[in-house]
């Protein structure tokens, strides 16, 4: 059932996001050919060509911001509309469990967040006209390896993935909490996001205080190498983020199972 949910969720989102990502890449390519940055730099009098160059630059950056914003909006909308709006009547009566709905939305959202990042980075690479991308990528990886150690190369992407997951689940939990209000559900969802954000910040502070004498003190005072410090910190982060994600997921699942009340 999960793979069916995933398939339909991809269909529903890809039809909007793929064209958007392609537009951004195409626009970067056009910008690369026109090369407005260079035009502005080399020309000393104002002409229509320069004016158009400025417009294409503004348009490009708007498109980058738009891509990121749309990914976020679609992620929120897919959860809010398809589970808690009228479509919820269809989704929640499918012969499957609530957690599969949440997981399918989550996985697809994470994929698109990564997709929007990759697209944006690719578009910057295109526009910058950098050569030897492969070579520079290897240098970047080597740089990371030098600072964070071999393990860092593997834990860093994993931590990023975990960070995105936690962020998405926090949004889902906020929407589910907001839906418990009888009126102004959308505003309540935003307010609940604030509450959850505060909650996570407080948790971070509390855990730092608790571990300050033991864990963090050794990190600061120690003569340990950077990779070692990074390893310990990443373990701390992974445990923390996993716990937080579990709390948000369980909260969302419980609210949508036990307290569901569609309009």
């Amino acid at each position, binding site marked *: 059932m999960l793979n*069916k949910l995933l398939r339909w969720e991809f269909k529903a989102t890809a039809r909007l996001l793929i064209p958007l990502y392609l537009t951004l890449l195409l626009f970067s390519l056009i910008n690369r050919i026109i090369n407005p940055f260079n035009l502005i730099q080399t020309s000393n009098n104002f002409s229509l060509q320069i004016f158009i160059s400025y417009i294409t630059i503004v348009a490009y950056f708007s498109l980058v911001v738009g891509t990121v914003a749309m990914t976020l909006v679609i992620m929120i909308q897919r959860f809010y509309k398809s589970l808690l709006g009228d479509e919820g009547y269809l989704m929640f*009566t499918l012969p499957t469990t609530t957690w599969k709905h949440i997981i399918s939305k989550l996985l697809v959202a994470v994929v698109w967040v990564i997709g929007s990042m990759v697209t944006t980075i690719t578009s910057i690479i295109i526009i910058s006209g950098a050569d030897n991308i492969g070579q520079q990528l290897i240098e970047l990886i080597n740089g990371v390896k030098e600072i964070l150690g071999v393990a860092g190369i593997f834990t860093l992407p994993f931590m990023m993935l975990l960070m995105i997951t936690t962020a998405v689940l926090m949004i889902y939990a906020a929407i589910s909490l907001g839906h418990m209000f009888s009126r102004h559900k959308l505003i309540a969802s935003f307010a609940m996001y604030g509450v959850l954000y505060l909650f996570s910040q407080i948790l971070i502070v509390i855990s730092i205080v608790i571990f300050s004498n033991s864990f963090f003190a050794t990190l600061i005072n120690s003569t340990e190498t950077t990779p070692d410090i990074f390893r310990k910190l990443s373990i701390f982060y992974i445990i923390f983020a996993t716990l937080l994600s579990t709390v948000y997921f369980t909260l969302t699942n419980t609210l949508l199972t036990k307290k569901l009340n569609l309009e």
Partner: protein
Amino acid sequence: MNNILECNNLTKVFGSKKALNNISFTIPRGKIVGLLGPNGSGKSTFIKLCNELLTATSGNLLISGHKPGVATKKIVSYLPEKTYLNDWMKVSQMVEFFEDFYDDFNPTTAYDMLSKLNINPKDKLKTMSKGTKEKVQLILVMSREAELYLLDEPIGGVDPAARDYILDTILNNYNENATIIISTHLISDIEKILDYIIFIKDGEVVMTKEVDEIREETGKSIDLLFREVFKC
């Protein structure tokens, strides 16, 4: 397992309001049941409980021996009051969606009914009127070979001419072992197809009876009886 649905002391409370108050009844298989009551009497709440769209405050509810969950959703075909169709899809994609998720869905039946009602499967749902969407929804729901159909106000939003077609659709598309529960307050329109009635008022069941019994005992139509029971 002769009863498709059983509920015992079922109660649902919203805040301080009791939407359903300790209701108990059973519904045998193979009947067309009218769940009748005025607006706000608890009809939709009951149907939502059957679909796990709400969780009961107390009491229990069994559909074919199971509590509402994945097992019951496989055998229950539900038509909500709302139009729940994904606006971005075409009708044909919606058919594919149902086919994908429900093993008992018959796409041939669906396409037959669509062509009879002159609905183009290539049309996008976004461009359709509310009435047409309701028809599509009913077609999808009735194209399942379910054991229990829960139809919440199936004729509320459509014109009287389409009502007859919809009732025929309902009658022609279910097998004899299946049960249909229709919730409505438009009694005169559906009276002729009902076998069994449940009168519900302020969250309480006032009467459950075979339609034939009512006719024999009182000689009254259900519409008349309803007006008497629910007199304001």
